């Protein structure tokens, strides 16, 4: 795939001139509205999947389309189509302005070329989408071998590669034209282990906005061995405990705690509507003073990073909690304007078929001062959870869950037996106040997270150092 600037890409592909786009924005703003924008998207997704030692399936999906948005106060009108033509754009603009009811005031400014995007976080010489399928097949076969080599009890291996190439262009009535070319690659491995009539699974994976070759530094094989190791560990797992106890979370992906417990609750839309358990709590204590939590969309190569969000705003590092005090929300344009707060570059959408919303990027807690071994040693009896599946939160009550897929008992300051997966449940505004130790070992996840909100999925990242939480409910079966 030739890498060209998004402006030129869409101009050449659909033959839409700047003047034509200005005219569409003019139509969108013909009645009383605050602003309007156009969102063009072209996306190619490829997958290759292996099972039973062979890559039997490959897919390639191409999608393209445009969305027209008109905003007036808290109202959004939106129309989208996967036919990109001037005629469709005009129809969409008329449909989107249906939210406005008076004849107009605002006018579109001439579309001007924006300066280059504020960041260049994922410069790749060869986009991963251009990786020959044969190279992907070869890697998947190596992963199969690596996982099976761990132990003869590994009876099946499922491995997959997913590659995305997404080109977006935002044209706003304020005159901005901002584009972004977003590569994304991930590899995932699931192993089945069987022994003595018992079967278990283990899963692991990772990726980011980088070239395919980055996966070839040994990390993909490490993911495969890790999936196998987890499956084997779970074969020997005892029933998990039930009840409220001290929980130590390992570094990295267990940061999904932050995503569920506080991240969603700090998204601007929920706070503007006053339906979040964190409503009106800026400046108050929501965590122990050991905790500083940020959302940072500007980390190079990361799955959750973006040069600009899906409204054309450059991403940034936003401090959410500083030494336990709630400092900020995550905003898109609409909610920032209505709350009279700054935009934070968190206006994201799944595709041209969706309205943007405030969403997280990479959300993590800064490192503390404890050695991770000391954090574990400080616990007489508790749970040590190191790998997780997904989580979910009820924004309004603040109750959140996340499900451990690999966990151990801590007995007398030592990690002892593995236990079966269990869901952990807590209360968002309360759980971080119970953090009594924070390790020095901050780690970001491997790059596999996908966040769902209101039916829209976007790639995200999380991170965490080892932390000790004094009192979290563990949903095992052993009461």
């Amino acid at each position, binding site marked *: 795939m030739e890498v060209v600037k998004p402006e030129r890409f869409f101009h050449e592909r659909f033959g839409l001139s700047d003047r034509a786009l200005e005219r569409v924005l003019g139509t969108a703003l013909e009645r009383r509205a605050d602003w309007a924008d156009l969102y063009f998207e072209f996306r190619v997704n490829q997958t290759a999947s292996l099972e039973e030692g062979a890559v039997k399936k490959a897919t390639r999906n191409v999608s393209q389309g445009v969305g027209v948005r008109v905003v007036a106060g808290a109202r959004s009108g939106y129309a989208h189509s*996967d036919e990109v033509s001037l005629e469709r754009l005009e129809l969409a603009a008329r449909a989107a302005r249906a939210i406005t009811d008076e004849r107009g005031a605002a006018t579109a400014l001439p579309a001007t070329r924006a300066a280059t995007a504020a960041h260049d976080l994922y410069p790749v010489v060869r986009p991963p989408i251009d990786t020959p399928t044969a190279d992907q097949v070869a890697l998947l076969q190596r992963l199969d071998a690596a996982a099976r080599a761990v132990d003869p009890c590994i009876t099946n291996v499922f491995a997959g590669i997913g590659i995305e190439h997404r080109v977006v262009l935002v044209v706003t009535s304020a005159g901005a034209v901002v584009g972004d070319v977003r590569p994304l690659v991930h590899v995932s491995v699931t192993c089945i282990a069987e022994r003595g009539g018992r079967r278990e699974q283990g899963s692991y994976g990772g990726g980011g906005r980088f070239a395919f070759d980055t996966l070839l530094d040994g990390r993909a094989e490490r993911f495969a061995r890790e999936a196998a190791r987890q499956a084997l560990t779970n074969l020997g797992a005892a029933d998990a405990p039930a009840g409220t106890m001290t929980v130590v979370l390992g570094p990295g992906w267990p940061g999904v705690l932050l995503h569920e417990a506080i991240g969603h609750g700090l998204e601007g839309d929920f706070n503007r509507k006053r339906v979040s*358990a964190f409503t009106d709590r800026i400046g108050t204590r929501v965590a122990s003073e050991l905790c500083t939590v940020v959302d940072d969309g500007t980390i190079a190569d990361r799955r959750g990073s973006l040069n600009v969000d899906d409204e054309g705003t450059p991403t940034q590092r936003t401090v959410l909690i500083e030494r336990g005090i709630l400092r900020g929300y995550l905003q898109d344009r609409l909610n920032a304007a209505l709350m009279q707060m700054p935009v934070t570059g968190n206006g994201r959408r799944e595709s041209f078929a969706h309205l943007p919303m405030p969403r997280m990027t990479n959300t993590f807690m800064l490192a503390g001062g404890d050695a991770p071994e000391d954090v574990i040693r400080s616990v007489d009896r508790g749970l040590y959870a190191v790998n997780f599946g997904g989580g979910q939160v009820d924004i309004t009550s603040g109750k959140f869950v996340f499900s451990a897929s690999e966990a151990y008992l801590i007995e007398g300051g030592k990690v002892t037996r593995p236990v079966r997966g269990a869901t952990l449940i807590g209360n968002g505004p309360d759980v971080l106040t119970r953090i009594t130790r924070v390790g020095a070992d901050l780690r970001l996840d491997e790059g596999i997270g996908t966040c769902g909100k209101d039916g829209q999925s976007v790639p995200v990242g999380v991170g965490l150092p080892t932390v000790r939480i004094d009192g979290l409910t563990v949903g095992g079966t052993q009461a």
Partner: protein
Amino acid sequence: MSGTDGSARAGTDLRELAHDLVARAHAAGARAADAVAVEGDGLAVGVRLGEVEKVKRSRQRRAGLRVFVGDATAIVSTADFSPDGLAALARDAVALAHATAPDPHAGLPDPAELAGEQPDLDLHDPAIERLEPEQALAWARDAEAAALAAAPEITNSEGAEFGADAGLVAYASSLGFVGAYAGSSASLAVVPVATRDGAMQRDSWYTAHRKLAGLEPPAEVGREAARRTLRRLGGRRPPTGECPVVFDPETAASLLRHLAGAIAGSALYRRMSFLLDRLGEQVASDTVTVVDDPIRPAGPASRPFDGEGVRQSRRTIVERGVLRSYLLDSYSARRLGMKTTGHAVRSVGDAPGVAPTNFVLEPGPHRPEAIIGSVRSGLYVTELIGFGVNPVTGDYSRGAAGLWIENGELAHPVEELTIAGNLRDMLRDIEMVGSDLRPRNAIAAPTLKIARMTVAGA
């Protein structure tokens, strides 16, 4: 929603497109192929605190092609319907298949399994295509207003949303099969927020149907949403221990979803199911009978043929606790040495998968009040959150909220708790099945009581 110029003509066009793609695949070197094409228009509106929040119109059109080159497979899709775009699609598919490994089980279904005459299942409501945003907004407003008026403790709202879609699906394959059908759906949902002593709770209620006339009155939806929200105020944490657990119909349906996943051919041949090799055996208590019916008129998942063109029929899946049928597409059937059950589902950009259609746990003899009345001390679950279900082992651990049952009555709300067990035991321990089945969703169940699970709370 304007845009489709009469479903009959558009259906013919889409059928021709699918047929044309199969021909192009053969010309490009495929041994066999099948194609699916979809188009649709949607309207979604949102109202919050009486004000318009969003009006969204969507239009989509996509085509997908699966090719078999020798025994190797590839799947491609596009939204580019230009002649060049369609020609490129077939070429890309064949090129991609050259990179994948042959699979002797790959291929289309046995021609004898294909649907012949395609019944009219009453799946499409032309009124949805004519629906204007003003009407949709009025219904959303009415529903939210009823919720807000229900009690002073309803202080806020996440809003009410009305959505409607109408569209067409066409499928064609090298076996000579060509079919198309129109479908529509509409839904209305309300999410009120209640406050007491500074603590907020939200819950929701909704109505959904293929036809506008099948929706419940907006005010009733709003009042039910308010009732469900208000009863959550003042939630406490229950003690940790074992007790009977009663699932309301909404949460009971989620158990049925786990059952469907475990008997899907794709999970079985991969040995990723907690119900391996159990056909003909008792997998649930004898109070449980589950039926899958893809040809129920106006059913939410009804269809004249499956994702491979296979004929559809009503099937008893679990009969008084005994597993009578798996859910299979042609690939998983060949893997298992069986025949397809017509459960292939096809998204435009992927190979067929396996899923149930209208999958219903048949109502039992007990009124829900009688089920609650049978519990001395236990949990009534109204909400489940999280993903703590292991499909390989059946291990089950999810976050929950609901009401505590004391001496056969709903005593007080409970929250911040988990329920845990193993799905194999949970299905066997279903002690009572309610009479309150309302099959408005594809997967539906009445109230269920499980004899014993572990509740973790304070």
